[in-house]
């Protein structure tokens, strides 16, 4: 027979002024199975908790209902009290008399009646509660970091410095990401590569970091603390151990007219190439799409000149497998190409470029070696027009959001242009200047006031070519929408930052959610910004939304702290609110018939197949089995199950039906 204790809290006046708590306690005393029922002014206070502890001991209670505030507020408190008194914490439930009753209804008998109903409902539930035990799962203290841009680098270094193993996977032949392409960074104008490359080297040399470049995630299975990952190492066509990075092959390769990805198509590279001089690792890769040997079957010049015989034309993709405990997704973003804009010439004007291309033009290691020359004829542009919000904040373009970094980098571009071409004229068309950040607004003011960049508030409607000049037609909305026409030599579009191609497919491999723009979604927009809804998978950087460098680094360190906290434990404890498939005696074994509808319903791939064998080892039945490490306890499978063979601990059929029966009795 159940011996339930009911503890009704007045919460001072909060409940006591509206609900007759003494009457609630008295009414509950009459419920069969209730062994003890009292009311008290503040149950959560020390004396209140002591009162519960003593009542559990004296009355040998088998369950507790605390009728007080929302369980979202104090359920952990009262479960702890029970646990300290030797009662399983999951034998404690809370009736919400404050948020759901006293605060929302007037003082009356009806309100007290409702309070009694709410408590009685939970009494019936708690009678059917079973002791549950937190699930313990081991933790593999290795992190998988996807993406070797600044976010991935920072996260990998922070986790590795905390003493944990890191596997860093980068899709491109070198780590560095977009930051390695930038010229100088706002608001300090320090050289991007100068601050980034030491960190890249640190990653390569760190004893705790295993680096896989030119590699991609093939699959991820498992659950928090216990993931299994397969990584595809794409064939570099090179024995990395033998290669010394001398670069002879890249200078001798006869195929020199391939647009360089690193230089955003403004420079050329060879078929066997290192993306940029400071690449990490500084080992070339053969681009099989363009290599003469792979396309025409002859050449092999690189093989002949290589002093260490490192070239391997027959190398194949390799799959490597690792067990990891956490995953950091830092796959970054990309920017829209100029061909996205029909009004700006569909990308057909060579001198209409995007911001990333202008970064390469400004960069000392870029195709023009840092001299500002326009792509079409190599002349120094006398007039440059910068267009902010190219695509961003434009629902007509399908990009409603602000790309966040463009205001700042446009100001930087205009400023750097003026520093390099003193007599040149820079114009910026903008919607608003969004320069929120430390030293950010001062930076844009400096562009306007010290470097005399002409800011025009308005949109550009059209760009067309006339006599070798680009005619930029726009309006100045601060001058009553006066039409503006500028003859420009170069136009730089601050194109929208968008999710990487393949972001959707990656999200599906990782089982993380993504928004309508294919950016990955955090677990809570304010309070859990680096976690995803999949436990053990974390986010860093611009794969979540466009971010600047300080923000990406900050988030990456935040993520690393989360991973380090996870790895500080040898075992994880999880709430035991998970689904279970029933088991019965032979010959039935379980009422589960193995239809696996639950498997299709489960958002976490937590349902596995279990073969039941007889004593001869023959399989007699295949039934569903819930992996408690993966199960998050949503219970969708329970509602799906036709034979009612699967149930959710803490919210069993027995419990919820008893609640409803009691409410309406």
């Amino acid at each position, binding site marked *: 027979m159940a011996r339930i204790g009911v503890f009704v809290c007045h919460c001072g006046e909060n409940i006591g002024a509206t609900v007759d708590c003494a009457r609630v306690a008295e009414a509950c005393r009459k419920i069969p199975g209730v062994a003890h029922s009292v009311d008290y002014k503040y149950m959560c206070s020390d004396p209140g908790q002591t009162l519960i502890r003593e009542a559990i001991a004296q009355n040998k209670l088998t369950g507790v209902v605390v009728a007080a505030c*929302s*369980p*979202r507020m104090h359920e952990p408190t009262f479960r702890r009290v029970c646990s300290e008194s030797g009662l399983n914490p999951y034998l404690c439930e809370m009736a*919400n008399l*404050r*948020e*759901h*009753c006293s*605060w*929302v*209804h*007037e003082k*009356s008998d*009806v*309100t007290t009646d*409702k309070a009694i*109903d*709410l408590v009685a*409902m939970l009494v019936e539930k708690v009678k059917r509660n079973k002791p549950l035990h937190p699930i313990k799962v081991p933790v593999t203290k290795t992190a998988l970091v996807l993406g070797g841009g600044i976010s991935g680098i920072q996260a990998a270094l922070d986790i590795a410095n905390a003493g944990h193993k890191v596997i860093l996977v980068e899709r491109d032949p070198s780590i560095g990401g977009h930051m390695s392409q930038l010229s100088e960074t706002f608001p300090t104008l320090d050289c991007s590569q100068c601050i980034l490359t030491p960190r890249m080297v640190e990653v390569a040399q760190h004893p705790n970091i295993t680096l896989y470049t030119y590699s991609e995630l093939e699959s991820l299975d498992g659950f928090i603390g216990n993931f299994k990952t397969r990584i595809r190492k794409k064939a570099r066509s090179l024995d990395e151990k033998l290669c010394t990075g001398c670069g002879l092959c890249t200078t001798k390769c006869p195929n020199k007219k391939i647009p360089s990805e690193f230089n955003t198509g403004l420079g050329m590279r060879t078929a066997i190439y290192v993306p940029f001089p400071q690449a990490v690792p500084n080992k070339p890769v053969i681009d099989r799409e363009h290599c003469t040997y792979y396309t025409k079957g002859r050449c092999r010049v690189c093989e002949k000149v290589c002093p260490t015989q490192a070239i391997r034309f027959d190398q194949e993709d390799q799959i490597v497998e690792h067990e990891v405990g956490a995953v950091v997704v830092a796959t970054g973003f990309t920017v829209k190409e100029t061909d996205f804009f029909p009004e700006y010439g569909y990308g057909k004007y060579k001198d209409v470029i995007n911001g990333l291309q202008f970064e390469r033009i400004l960069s000392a290691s870029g195709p023009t070696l840092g001299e500002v020359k326009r792509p079409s004829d190599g002349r120094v542009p006398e007039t440059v027009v910068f267009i902010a919000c190219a695509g961003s904040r434009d629902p007509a373009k399908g990009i409603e959001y602000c790309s966040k970094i463009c205001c700042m980098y446009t100001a930087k571009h205009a400023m750097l242009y003026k520093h390099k071409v003193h007599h040149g004229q820079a114009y910026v068309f903008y919607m608003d200047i969004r320069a929120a950040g430390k030293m950010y607004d001062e930076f844009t003011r400096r562009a306007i006031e010290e470097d005399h960049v002409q800011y025009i508030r308005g949109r550009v409607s059209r760009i067309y070519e006339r006599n070798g000049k680009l005619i930029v037609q726009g309006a100045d909305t601060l001058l009553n929408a006066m039409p503006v026409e500028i003859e420009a030599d170069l136009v730089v579009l601050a194109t929208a930052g968008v999710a990487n191609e393949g972001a959707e497919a990656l999200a599906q491999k990782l089982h993380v*959610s993504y928004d309508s723009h294919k950016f990955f979604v955090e677990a809570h927009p304010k309070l859990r910004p680096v976690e995803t*809804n999949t436990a053990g998978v974390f986010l860093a950087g611009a794969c979540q939304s466009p971010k600047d460098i300080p923000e990406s680094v900050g988030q990456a360190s935040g993520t690393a702290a989360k991973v380090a906290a996870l790895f500080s434990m040898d075992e994880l404890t999880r709430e035991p*609110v998970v689904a279970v498939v029933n088991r019965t005696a032979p010959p039935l074994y379980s009422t589960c018939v193995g239809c696996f509808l639950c498997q299709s*319903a489960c*958002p*976490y791939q937590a349902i596995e197949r279990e073969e039941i064998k007889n004593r001869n080892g023959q399989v007699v039945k295949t039934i569903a089995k819930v992996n408690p490490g993966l199960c*998050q*306890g*949503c*219970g*969708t499978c*329970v*509602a*799906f199950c036709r034979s009612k063979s699967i149930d*959710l601990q*803490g*919210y069993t*059929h027995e419990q*919820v*039906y008893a*609640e*409803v*029966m009691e*409410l*309406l*009795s």
Partner: protein
Amino acid sequence: MSEFEPKIVAFVCNWCTYAGADLTGTSRIKYAPNVRIVRFPCTGRIDFMLLLKAFSQGADGIIVSGCHPNDCHYTSGNFHARRRWMAFRNLAEFMGIEVERIQFSWVSAAEGAKWADLVNSTVNRVRELGPYDAYRQMAASSWQ
């Protein structure tokens, strides 16, 4: 009949609507005391047989409410609930249950006022429909 106070049972998810109803309380927004909230982890857990059970036990109206589409704490439980509701509604109509007595809705953790409106509008509608005993009569007659 003028004294009729409907009994409404609300099946809500823990993460959105339960928290939304908590916010109604925190904001001290008053609503009709006819509703009793039963907490579930997710609307995906709600077995719609439970709705029939509630009607058979004397409920006059039912609210099922969870997270908005794409906001589900468990990614997709609310979509399963919606699909189940679409199927169940046809079944309920076929059985002769007045589907207006069932209110399927989404209330987020930030929509305290919406929860109060939802309860009040459901109570008012069910009050107009009158007490519900057709199911019990139906069950009784089929038993005989």
